[in-house]
């Protein structure tokens, strides 16, 4: 089975090779899915049926965050929203980042946040 943490490795490798905006946006998107899918698979252990019953894939993001809260991990839930916002900015908002520095900061922060979430998920 594919390991979602590979998305994080991919993002870190990719950003080391290029610093253009499309690469930055791609990296941010992959870091989010590395974190979200890792969290989802953790949650699947406790709520396999409920997760499978979700009719829309789009609803699983909130489902995962809510189940983390049910298991007293509001901190991880909050951080997933934080990373999701960066990902939404990267994937949906076509306005350019204000500067190359801001763009680079967004990528490195997304990678750090993703690493932090995956670390915290080890206790779930």
């Amino acid at each position, binding site marked *: 089975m594919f390991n979602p943490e590979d998305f994080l490795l991919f993002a870190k490798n990719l950003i080391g090779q290029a610093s253009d905006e499309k690469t930055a946006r791609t990296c941010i998107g992959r870091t989010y899915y590395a974190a979200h899918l890792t969290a989802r698979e953790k949650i699947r252990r406790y709520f396999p049926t409920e997760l499978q019953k979700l009719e829309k894939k789009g609803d699983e*993001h909130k489902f995962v965050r809510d189940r983390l809260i049910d298991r007293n991990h509001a*901190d991880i839930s909050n*951080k997933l929203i934080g990373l999701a916002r960066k990902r939404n900015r990267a994937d949906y908002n076509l306005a350019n980042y204000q500067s190359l520095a801001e763009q680079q900061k967004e990528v490195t922060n997304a990678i750090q*946040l993703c690493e932090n979430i995956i670390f915290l998920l080890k206790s779930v």
Partner: protein
Amino acid sequence: MSKVPKMPQETLVMEYADTYQSPLHSNNEMVTIDSPSSLDYTGNFVFGEFTLPRKHWFMSSKTSLQIEPTFSATLSAYLIKPSLRPHTFNVSNFWSEATRIERPLRTVRHPSGLGPFFEMQETISPSASIQIPHQLAEIADESALNMLLSEADLISHATRLYESALREFSNLGLSAECSLTSYVEPESEEVGNLLLGVKIHGKPYAEILQIWDKLSMSLPSDLPAEIQKKLSIVVDEA
């Protein structure tokens, strides 16, 4: 939205419902309002003659304009009164308040023989509107205000969350700025979260992640899980 009543120009009619109606007269300079963003809800009202003190009154969404043959216009908006105290405010033409929750319905008739821009004062009872604490209203954007209006039970919890965060900033000696907004999944139709955004100055991101953990731990522990699922705190680098 309520339809603009056709009325004699000598009479201004105000319905207290979930919309506000401020009829304009044909000798007014017509103002076009075509989207909610036309409302500067932290500053002056777009009709120009009507001024709301910044940070005291907010209007949000549901903005629309209907031009009738009589050149009357209707602005539908919600005024959110953040203060718990009764307010007195000046209006041009006629303007008043209503709420989405209570929807008091009555009609006020006022002779407009003084002209379209006469001034009057109206004292608003605090019980007649949704109370959003001033400190919360100050940091909230339009989407957050709408969410608070539609889920009023969030107001007290959001206030406690914000106050708790402010205390923690003080304890940790942080320079931070807060905002209240909403977060909705772009690929989902589910109701979103109310989100307290915190931007911290002068700290490396690794340290901000630790501060985020501390803030999450220091939040009111008695917040019900169902409220926690609607209320989130997101910390970032300023």
